[in-house]
């Protein structure tokens, strides 16, 4: 459903001893969005995403995924895929076996799965190497296998943390085109992070700017253009100005 809230957070916070890694982040991602989370290294993007995936427990705040919260969150994650940081694959297993592992985690019956898994490998361009062990894959191939794992089970929502890291220009373009295709054809909602603004601009329909754990600005791609235009600056300068002004400013 269009405009359905897929992910909503209210004052989500993560504190490590005295350090606030994520500071009262309130945001929502709607169905069909390609939401780009941008911030410098150490801004808290990965920590936030890990909380959404259930890998880290929030210190405070609330989170809803498909309207579910609390103890129901883990069940709701069945309809979500994630690729956090480095692609996580079993090196001694083939690409197909890695997908089979994920299939079992999702509870998908074997008899329904072979076509789906082969289709996934084809989608990410690994159809020719499906029976080869993942330890022989390049970083780019592992990244694509990681994406295929995240897409197993046809999730409606996917989280990608720095998905283009380690990819060459061609690889980045292929991944970008694939994500756009999945968003347009299958309505896949994408929440991804990057510190490369130019890469993000080619993909995102909405942006969230994270600085020192705080969400300092949210705007759509059109709003970004409208804000940059009159000032005669590019998006990168706009973001840098946001950081400079971030001292006393929270997201309005």
């Amino acid at each position, binding site marked *: 459903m269009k405009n359905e809230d897929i992910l909503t957070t209210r004052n989500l916070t993560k504190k490590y001893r005295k350090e606030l890694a994520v500071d009262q982040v309130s945001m929502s991602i709607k169905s069909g969005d390609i939401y780009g989370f941008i911030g410098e290294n150490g801004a808290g993007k990965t920590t936030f995403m*890990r909380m959404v*995936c*259930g*890998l*880290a*427990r929030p210190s405070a705040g609330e989170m809803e995924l498909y309207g579910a919260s609390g103890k129901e969150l*883990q*069940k*709701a*994650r*069945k*309809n*979500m*895929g*994630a690729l*956090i*940081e*480095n692609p*996580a*694959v*079993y*090196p*001694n*297993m083939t690409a197909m*076996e890695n997908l*089979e*592992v*994920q299939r*079992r*985690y*999702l*509870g998908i019956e074997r008899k329904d799965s072979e076509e789906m898994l082969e289709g996934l490998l084809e989608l990410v361009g690994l159809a020719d190497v499906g029976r080869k062990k993942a330890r022989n894959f390049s970083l780019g191939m592992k990244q694509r296998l990681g994406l295929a*794992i*995240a897409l*197993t*089970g046809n*999730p409606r929502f996917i*989280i990608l943390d720095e998905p283009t890291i380690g990819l060459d220009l061609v690889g980045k373009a292929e991944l970008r085109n694939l994500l756009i295709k999945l968003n347009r054809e299958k309505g896949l909602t994408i929440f991804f992070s990057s510190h490369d603004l130019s890469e993000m601009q080619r993909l995102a329909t909405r942006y969230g700017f994270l600085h020192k754990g705080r969400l300092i600005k949210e705007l759509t791609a059109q709003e970004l253009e409208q804000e940059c235009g009159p000032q005669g600056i590019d998006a990168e300068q706009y973001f840098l100005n946001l950081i400079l002004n971030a001292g006393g400013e929270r997201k309005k």
Partner: protein
Amino acid sequence: MRLFANELCKIKASRSVKWITIIFFCFAVLAGAVWKKGANPVEIYGFGAPFLWILGSGASGFFLYAAVVAGLFASEFESGVIHNALGCGVRRSSYFIAKVTAIFGVTVLIYLSSLGVLFLFKCRIAGFGPAELIFADYGRKVLVFNGWAICSLLSYVAVYIFIACLFRESVLTFIASLVVTLCELFHLFRGPVRIAIDAVAFIERDRILTPEFAALFMPCVWILVISLIGAYTLFLVQDID
């Protein structure tokens, strides 16, 4: 069941586990081939000495196997593959239980298989035969002895699993696990290995089927339970990096 099947697939795919299992079976073949019947009361039973050798010997492949498997557990944190499971809705408790059950199951399977190999070679090469099986309650004694031996081995595996949940790095887990074993072998504390060696006296006095023999292994039971509770708690509570 599907989580359990996944864990079995992962163990099966591990080259380290395959090699360690092969080494362990080679030890079993060797122990069976060199065994000689003698007048020693332990050897009259036909099985005590070699099995105790397997259990008590730091040179056996078994503890190495257990350390490798715990290292595999820890490597899932390192490599991030655990994210794939937890990020798609698998509960931490289910994941942990499936993994520990698979590790324990494979451990028992390897132990029992190597027992069978050892017995086979003893019968073929050293001439241990049916006549030796007529000792009173031989079958029960074999079951009881090996039941407790498995318990003591699983207690070690549980300690290694706890170490894996604590350190979450495969190399560190492997080293720490072996250090724990070596500490016991060098008498720095009394744990499952020393207990198993102390069990020899009970075999010599034909006191396997006594409450005292069972009581000897109670510390192993406690170690098993406490280690698993500790590992489970760590796994449930800590953030996954």
